[in-house]
Every structure is written in C-alpha cells, then in structure tokens.
C-alpha cells in the first residue's frame, strides 16, 4: 500500500496506509533534528511523533530550524 500526502505543498508518496510521524521521518531520511511539523494545521510536538499518524491526503508542513540569529 502507498499513500499520497502533501509535504510542504508538494505531493509525496509514502509506503503504508497510515504511518507515524517518526516512521515518515525514517522513510524519507529526514535526519536533521530541529524542526517543526504541522499536520493539517495542527502542530505536533516532538513527544507525539511516535503516537501521531499521518494519513492519506494529509497536508504536512515541515520547517527546519537552523541555529543563528
């Protein structure tokens, strides 16, 4: 099974029917640790990455936070 999501406004395919945020990060090889993730407009805090699922059609926004200011 595969599903389609929007990731930063671009269509992406993921393996599975519904996967956790943590699994999505592994599957997409997103290793940089400092980030903000929102699913359908709701911010998902880091401690919820294992227990929050991404489903087909979801709108996922990811923002990397780089040190410096």
């Amino acid at each position, binding site marked *: 099974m595969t599903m389609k999501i929007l990731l930063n406004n671009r269509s992406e395919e993921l393996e599975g029917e519904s996967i956790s945020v943590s699994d999505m990060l592994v599957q997409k090889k997103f290793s940089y640790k400092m980030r903000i993730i929102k699913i359908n407009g709701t911010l998902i805090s880091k401690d919820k990455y294992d227990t929050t699922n991404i489903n087909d059609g979801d709108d996922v926004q990811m*923002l990397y936070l*780089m040190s410096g*200011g």
Partner: protein
Amino acid sequence: MKLAEIRAHLSKFRVGIAGAGGLGSNCAVALARSGVGTLVIADFDVVEEANLNRQYYFTDQIGMSKTIALKENIWCINPGTTIIIKQEKLDKGNIVQIFSGCNIIVEAFDSSSMKEMLIETVQTKMPGIPIIVGSGMAGWGKTNDLRYRKIDDTLYVCGDESTEVTDNLPPLAPRVAIVANMQANVVIELLMNNNYQ
C-alpha cells in the same frame, strides 16, 4: 497611503520580540522606525564585544543588559515607541504571560532548540497569534536564497532554511540584518491588512 497614516495605524499595535541579538535588535529598530506602538523585548543576556559584528549595539554598551541598551538606542531613534523590557530567560512556563496582549511575535533566538521551544509554545498556547521565525542566515552572499515563506496564517519563516551557524560559517551583519528586516516587513504587512483594525 501616506507615511503619517501608516505610522498612525501601526502605533495601535504591540509586537513581541523573543531575543535581542542579531535578529531581535535589528528587527526592533526597523519596527520602531516604522511607528509600531509598543514592543515587548525579552532577553536575559548582556552586550558583548563579539555581538557588535551584527547586533544593534555600540562599544560603550558592552556589559550592559541587551534589553536596556536596546531601549536606549530605540529612544534615540523614535522616542514615541513604548518599550516594555523583560529581562528573563524565556521558557514554556513564562512565554504566554510575557507576551500576553501582543498582536504578533517575532522569533529572534539564535539557538535552534530555543526556536523550537518558542514556536511550539506560541502555536499551542497562544492560538491565532502569528509567529515570524528566522531560520538560516549564516555566512555571506547567497542573497537570493534568503526568502520568506508563509506556512499558514499563524506561521511564517524568513531565511534560507538551510545554513547553520558554525565556527567556520559565522553570522555576519548583512545576512542577519536582511532576515531581521524581512521579519519586520512581514510584521508590517500583517498589521497593515484588514484583520488588524
């Protein structure tokens, strides 16, 4: 719209600035020059010599608390700006109270973990309040990589979203001040639109 009308409109609003380093000091100055009425500036640090390569401070302010030094500098630019200073380290427990009443919050930290903590707190505990994030401004050049992105109505990011400050890629005045002024520009764009009366 005439400058006097723009300033009269902006004078009605309160903007929170989280951090008074390279982003925060330059952004606060741009907002004060534009006529934003009240700035709530939070920082617990003091001015150091190493800050002067990009932050809006002067040599005779070394050792002074950044919030007090910035208030002094803004006073010299636009004494009509109301500056509320908070000499506290921001954490999950005090952010809501410190920035209560702010129409918009500017994220101006340098550490990525502090950026994350602030954004998570504002987005979950202050619903509807836009936060303008700075991410990616290390080094020099690559001017066209610096950009603005609206994620949704409450989350905006300015910067290249890719360069991280290291010993060999330090923050320099031009790129940091460009991003700080991009953040100020987003604040003004939001305040000038019809949702803010």
